């Protein structure tokens, strides 16, 4: 009788990486649905296009590296990256924008580092930022939310949308417009109340910005599901949202014309919720320990606010995440938990003095 030599433990929990990724995909559905309801078919097309490109790129690189393809593709991580990129891009962006972004995400930000688990930067955000910098026009053309469409105009149908994406018709008049953050940023000289009254994006909204609040609620709902299933811990998202809230309270400035906006607006506009629950929780590129993730999340929150309020970019989640990715390994070195039996936390760079 001969048996295999296998290391303990022999039992394993049922969770596996593929399932984790699939769960993340399911959790994006409320957000995607909200996007589609508010802005038409655009994001769905983005997502599909990004997934196809990403999977092809991933497969090609794995092939080049002579690795077993099915095994690596099965982890669904490329799909998650693609879906998140697709959700972040403006609806009805030209097809080549989506393709270039996905290629950057998968090839440069992910596979050059060895694929899943090794990339120090969030691939989807790398793709997004590259696009934002390279194609500012396409990346700043947003669609008007459902509620604000002019009388008689509706979002393009699926077929029309496809036409716009693939052959570059421009959308009908009135269908494109600014995002709340954008709009807010450029209404200089007005006090906040005036902006709220004059801009329909705010005046017709419940609490943050028309359309956008629903999208953010969608991502919040998905995020809470993930939190509840233990895919990630609360530290990162909560720290980020708290940091944004605190910063916007500190600088609220009574709603003067210098005010960068209310906490509610910052929390429920742009990519705040998606960032908090889907982007900065990317386990691979974030800090590892819980304390580290608190710092990491807070750093992102602060950076998001700073760039939104005083920088060039109306929504800064992508930049903030990349900047924090950059700091993460450093944070990791100084946020080790206190191990059982030790009185102090150690630093990762500490050498054994008495050994």
């Amino acid at each position, binding site marked *: 009788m001969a048996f295999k030599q296998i290391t303990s*433990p022999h039992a394993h929990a049922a969770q596996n990486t593929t399932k984790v990724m699939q769960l993340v995909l399911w959790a994006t559905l409320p957000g995607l649905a909200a996007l589609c309801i508010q802005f038409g078919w655009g994001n769905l097309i983005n997502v599909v296009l990004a997934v196809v490109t990403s999977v092809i790129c991933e497969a090609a690189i794995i092939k080049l590296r002579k690795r077993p393809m099915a095994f690596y593709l099965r982890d669904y991580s490329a799909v998650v990256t693609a879906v998140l990129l697709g959700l972040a891009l403006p609806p009805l962006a030209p097809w080549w924008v989506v393709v270039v972004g996905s290629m950057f995400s998968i090839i440069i930000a992910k596979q050059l580092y060895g694929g899943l*688990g090794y990339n120090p930067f969030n691939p989807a955000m790398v793709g997004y930022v590259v696009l934002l910098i390279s194609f500012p026009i396409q990346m700043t053309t947003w669609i008007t939310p459902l509620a604000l469409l002019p009388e008689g105009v509706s979002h393009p149908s699926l077929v029309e949308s496809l036409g716009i994406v693939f052959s570059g018709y421009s959308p009908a008049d009135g269908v494109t417009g600014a995002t709340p953050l954008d709009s807010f940023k450029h209404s200089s000289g007005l006090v906040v109340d005036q902006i709220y009254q004059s801009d329909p994006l705010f005046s017709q909204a419940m609490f943050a910005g028309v359309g956008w609040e629903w999208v953010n609620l969608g991502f919040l709902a998905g995020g809470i599901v993930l939190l509840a299933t233990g895919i990630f811990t609360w530290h990162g998202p909560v720290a980020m949202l708290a940091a944004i809230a605190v910063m916007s309270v500190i600088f609220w400035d009574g709603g003067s014309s210098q005010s960068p906006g209310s906490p509610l607006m910052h929390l429920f506009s742009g990519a705040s919720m998606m960032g908090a629950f889907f982007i900065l929780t990317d386990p691979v590129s974030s800090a*590892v320990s819980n304390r580290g993730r608190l710092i990491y999340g807070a750093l992102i929150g602060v950076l998001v606010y700073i760039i939104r309020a005083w920088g060039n970019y109306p929504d800064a989640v992508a930049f903030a995440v990349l900047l924090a990715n950059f700091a993460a390994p450093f944070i990791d070195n100084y946020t080790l938990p206190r191990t059982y039996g030790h009185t102090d936390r150690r630093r990762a760079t500490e*050498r054994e003095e008495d050994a």
Partner: protein
Amino acid sequence: MTKTWVTPGGVHPPENKHQSLTLPIGALPIPEKLLVPLNQHIGAPANACVKVGQKVLKGQRIADATGAVSVPMHAPTSGTISAIEDRPIAHSSGMSAPCIEITSDGKDSWIEHEGIADFEHSNPEVLTKIIADAGIAGMGGAGFPSAIKLSPGHTRPIDTLIVNATECEPYITADDSAIRERAAEIIEGIGILSHILGNPSNILIGIEDNKPEAIAALQPHVADSGISVVSFPTKYPSGGEKQLIYILTGKELPSGTLPADVGMVCINIGTTYAIKRAVVNGEPLISRVTTMTGNACGINRNYETLIGTPVSHMLAHSEFNEAACSRLVMGGPMMGFSLTSADVPVVKTTNCILAPTYSEIPEDEPAQACIRCGMCAEACPASLLPQQLFWYSQAEDHDRLEAHNLFDCIECGACSYVCPSNIPLVQHYRHSKGEILKAREEKVKSDHARGRFEFHQQRMEQAEKDKEAKRAARREAAEKAKASAATSTGEGSAADIIAAAQARAAAKKVSPEQQKAKFERSIAGAEMRVQMATEKLAEAAAEQSDEQKNILTAALDGAKQKLEQAQARLADHIEQHQELDSEQVK
């Protein structure tokens, strides 16, 4: 309800304990051949004190303890010693080690033995000696000789005795069933321990709340005995010594210390039973309760198993279906190690044999990349960062591993259990720990070698200098001789030649003092070698490696001979010179 503390991390694998609890503890037929490994636990291996062919009785000592951390072995049944040789033993490596094979005579006749009924009046040292002689090693984990844990000489008095009845691993029910059936004896064992340790103020039996029957069985016996049975929520790995101490007392065992350093002793509940049997009944440790479980076996139950019973024997009596069995595990599914062969024997620490089917424990999936999800860190009871340990283990960055407290990992496997990427984390840690220890050892060795090399260089230099000096002296003498020859004779080649030859001879002839010094040096050298060889031999003897011992004995003899020779030569030399001197005097 005593207060308990909650450890961080931990996991809740399916318990699967009911299967083996349907039947009471059973007994297996005595196997035809039993195999007692000399190396049953962490300490030094025991030294066989029987010969092949010798007849032994049940409970007769067949191997002596060697060195401090070691326990003796006893014959688990009566019979004949049929072999003393290397056999595969229960070890994760699957390697072989020396074992004593006993062919049972089927009579199972006990050697004469006698216990002490009123241990309260015995000297603790006497009791400890009994425990040591009974070969009792911890039955809950590492198999550390219990007598050492109990022996005095602790840095501080023991104020807490913790009895580990946690049995947090899935499947295993050895302790549970033992408590149900033998509660009285167990409590008596605890009484013995308490007596030996000078009646510590706290005696706690730690048990998980998934064993209500066992708790109920203990309750009547502990009433006003000063022992408290503390139950706490079920969570793996509450049974780890460090975790249990924290759960029961809220104190952490500082890294690198032993429970004794903080005034505690932690002992497995099965061990207390063995101690009772040893002290009160005079029986050495020759059997233990072992759970036989897993769906590849038709019968799941606990057996009172003789130490040395081959696992195959247990399987054979448990309706084992080899084809269905995905792996054979000694111990539980979390900490147990896989057996490569079913022929290995049960040892003192074997609390479970697990034979699962493929559907129970499938083959391991290939590991995916670590996505740094942190589930492992959430599960780690020691608050480590398993993903970082894994990362640095892959990078072979030993400094970082130590800075991340690799050596505080108790290898509980909770991290691997939850890892969604199926990474064999524990194996990585074990590998890295091994590598680090090896590197440390090699460092010591290489420092030693450097010292020896430097010494060698010095010696060679000295020798070279001596030689050079000698050569110079010779040259000088030759020249002098030449010069004198030239001046004195001037002509006559024959005379020249003779003179030169004489000069050479004179040069070559070392002064008697030099000669003597040389002999003395060689004696000193030889003495040093003898001494060195003797020391080595002593060490080797302690370590029990025969081969090395033979080599060294030979070497010692050689060195001794050389010493004698040198001495003899010196003596000769001195004699000669005395003669010479006397001649000269004459």
